[in-house]
């Protein structure tokens, strides 16, 4: 049973560019959450997707957007990249209902560097 997978592992982009990160949830999970982890910090919640819609959102600008596909996989898009967007981006999947929080499994993350 594959866990949460993310691609790519590492990514280097230039300021002003756009980036897309991808996440495949654990088998049997239908909810995907995205977190940003800056260096030396704890992860911060970006947004959560369920049934192909954004279910809730943290305090991130509109430059951060997402999508969920019918197979439950998800993308995180960041436009007009800033140096401050450099971080580890974590995806977490969970089953809907009471399992969302206490059964949230994290992927290995994508390290984004903006130069």
């Amino acid at each position: 049973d594959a866990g949460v997978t993310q691609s790519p592992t590492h990514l280097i982009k230039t300021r002003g560019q756009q980036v897309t990160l991808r996440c495949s949830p654990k088998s049997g999970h239908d909810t995907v959450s995205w977190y940003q982890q800056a260096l030396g910090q704890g992860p911060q919640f970006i947004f959560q997707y369920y049934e192909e819609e954004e279910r809730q959102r943290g305090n991130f600008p509109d430059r951060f957007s997402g999508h969920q596909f019918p197979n439950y996989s998800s993308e995180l898009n960041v436009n007009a990249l800033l140096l401050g967007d450099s971080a580890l981006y974590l995806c977490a999947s969970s089953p809907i209902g009471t399992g969302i929080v206490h059964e949230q499994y994290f992927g290995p993350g994508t390290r984004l560097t903006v130069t």
Partner: protein
Amino acid sequence: AQTVTQSQPEMSVQEAETVTLSCTYDTSESDYYLFWYKQPPSRQMILVIRQEAYKQQNATENRFSVNFQKAAKSFSLKISDSQLGDAAMYFCAYSEDDKIIFGKGTRLHILP
């Protein structure tokens, strides 16, 4: 604002000894979950232990146990018989509205 405070940025413990990591949090909710996550250099966030706020009994998972003081909003993690593989960043977190709010972490070093 929802916050989680881990007052110890770094800690060290001798192998086979016991160490306690501290955490306080702030929430106005009465029903929530508390977590300790481990993040080794591989970056994978691994759930160590989970506590439901409405349960008074402290959670235990093998060598890991918590001291949950709801009134004080305190949630410390005790690691017994520390092993070299326990070396990692440890994040305290709590949940609300189906999202998880993390502290800044404590880096734990295990001394052989």
